[in-house]
């Protein structure tokens, strides 16, 4: 699994950081997503997909 994050679209709602804090953090500057692990292990795949779905701005995608 590979995650991509578009910080120009991100509004810093923090749903990803709330859902999978091992994979997503937020910038102290503008709250936008910081990818801690762009290729997370398989056991986090379900949680990452939930986070992508919860993202309000459509800033996250997985492939």
């Amino acid at each position, binding site marked *: 699994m590979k995650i991509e994050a578009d910080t120009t679209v991100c509004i810093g709602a923090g749903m990803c*950081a709330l859902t999978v804090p091992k994979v997503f953090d937020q910038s102290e500057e*503008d*709250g936008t997503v910081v990818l801690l692990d762009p290729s997370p292990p398989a056991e986090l795949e379900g949680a990452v997909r939930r986070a992508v779905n919860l993202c309000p701005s459509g800033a996250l995608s997985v492939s």
Partner: protein
Amino acid sequence: MSDLTLTTERERPLDPPDKFTELRERGPLHRMRYADGHLGWLVTGYAAARAVLADPRFSNRPELAHPPIPARLELLKEQQFQVPPGFFLRMDAPEHTRYRKLLAGQFTVRRMNQLEPRIAEIAEACLDRMEAGERPADLVEEFALPIPSLVICELLGVPYDDRERFQADSKVLFGLESEGADVVAAMTRISTFLYGLIQHKRAEPGDDLLTGLIEGGELTDEELTGVAFLLLVAGHETTANMLGLGTYALLTDPGQLAALRDDPSLMDDAVEELLRHLTIIHLGPVRAALEDVELEGTVIAKGEAVTLHLPVANRDPARFPGGDRLDVTRPASGHLTFGHGIHQCLGQQLARIEMRVGYAALLRRLPGLRLAVPPEEVPMRTDMSIYGVHRLPVTW
């Protein structure tokens, strides 16, 4: 179908009006007559509501808006839909983006988690006072309102001793039956107070969010006033009503209350479920189509207004099976109570912590907590733009 209008009166206090639930069973989109005569739409389906909120072709700019209910109709006409500077809630991207990015760093999950010990202190202090006082007590006055009020005041750097200068005015702003002139006067008083506070902070900086924004140098004092206005008012009326109404919901549903008492690890899920099930945003949001948009097979024409009925959308069985039931063990995240899209609530991570800490402290400290009046005597906020209880008489 065009005789459909929006109402807030309910058959049962914890369920949305039956007519909107019945509409959702017929389909996700319905023609609705707005208070100014406009023929627009009401969305009752979850997927359609979420799609509108995420779609930049639907605008939140007030000059395009039509009011779904008559409240403030005259005022809206008179004011010609002017947005005060810094009122980014009513802006579209890219104007909105600048303000959102300036603020979002202050409301991250990590920063809000750092506030948890202080929020817990505030909750305990409220309960200390309540326990030392008379029974029955009004949970709204003693607990549900002071917690978020103190927290947002400390965060922004607004002196809590000045609260009587904005709490009463805040009630006027949210009252659906408030006179237009009173709403303007209340807005002016809060803005004047905040403008003065910003001037004061320029001279004497504090260790707070407003000082940080002033020192950042990106916003004029007028913009800072608009931003502070939004944060102060939104920080008050929302969480306060979730604490009050959430407690009412638990006290009138002994099975759910017992489940939560027996297993405090359910608290995070319970907070999401209460947000979903109660959906205190019971009027709107409202958007306007910037161009023709096809939504679930129906074309919304350019200029038409769309009101999203979040209380029934959040109970759509296609997304939340058995959604009419409160179930604190349900995975309820994905609800639309904080919105979706670029305007999704800036303070939601703070609100989650205030609820988690607040409900937990209340259940732990007052194990015998119960209503002091029959449930049907609790006055419900059908007359306010944010739903909840006006008062909640409790004893323990």
